[in-house]
């Protein structure tokens, strides 16, 4: 290591530890059946019952945190479909 190493502020091992803890907590909890993917499938199925889903207009995003997961489903519903439903 060069002398610059001495002045490095943030250590990387704690980051590795935290990232792994979060990831493994989620993977262990969802061994076999992943709740988030079940929710994802079922929510999309419910929407698809009422609106014709265009796969290009469905955006699913996820962010896993220490204490929770965020599942974000963003569906563009065309005006035509809303009129039909009304």
């Amino acid at each position: 290591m060069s002398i610059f190493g001495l002045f490095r502020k943030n250590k990387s091992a704690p980051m590795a530890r935290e990232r792994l803890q979060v990831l493994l907590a989620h993977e262990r909890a969802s061994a076999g059946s992943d709740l988030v993917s079940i929710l994802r499938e079922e929510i999309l199925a419910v929407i698809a019952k009422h609106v014709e889903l265009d796969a290009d207009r469905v955006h699913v995003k996820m962010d896993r945190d220490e204490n929770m997961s965020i599942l974000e489903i963003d569906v563009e519903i065309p005006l035509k479909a809303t009129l039909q439903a009304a």
Partner: protein
Amino acid sequence: MGKVIVVTSGKGGVGKTTSTAALGAALAQNGERVVVVDFDVGLRNLDLVMGAERRVVYDLVNVIQGEAKLTQALIRDKRLESLFLLPASQTRDKDNLTTEGVDRVITELKRVFDWVICDSPAGIERGATLAMRHADMAVVVTNPEVSSVRDSDRIIGLLDSKTLKAERGERMEKHLLLTRYDAVRAERGDMLKVDDVLEILSIPLIGIIPESSDVLRASNMGAPVTLADARCAPAMAYFEAARRLRGEQLPISIPGDKRGIFGKIFGRKAA
């Protein structure tokens, strides 16, 4: 049409995933559109090394099985907007990778990206042969160590027989990426030298990545080493390797060779 590269080695733990992430990011840092594809179904790790493990929604198997569109499964890197990841499935069996499915996905990716970099699983089974199947060129990752060199030799044989290129009777372009190289130990005679490995494997060298704590630091943080610290020795070696992938002719320097205390203090560039 984009170029398809397979990063392969036979042996595990030699640096395929690290190298896939670093080369992918290095190419994308130059503005090219890059996708890195994880073929290690059941034991994915490219997402972790790229720092995208919390954002995986769909994966390669979902796309192959028609459960998700390719555009939904691609994860855009948070730091580089022309870099994308297609993760492997963690829960599915690798038998879910079908030849036709992989054909379809790679064909589609080639249309959109300049580079499609396939991170092969270790071994010589289905996942590994599917990862190399569409390759235009191969990066064979090797450590200066007997078992790694032997396994690389075996993989070179597969690249020349089990790929679409080989089946068409064309020549597969193969490049050696020597990783975890320690010039001091090689000089002392405790490690195979670059020339030893080159002589045994007889494929052209694309880069020598020095053994370095910077690589571990980068993976701890979840960043390709070329993004974590672009000026550290392994990052610079990966940047050079990426330039050679683009076809540039550059002289190969052996990192860390004969570097004294002055070199260490002032000469990070010399590394």
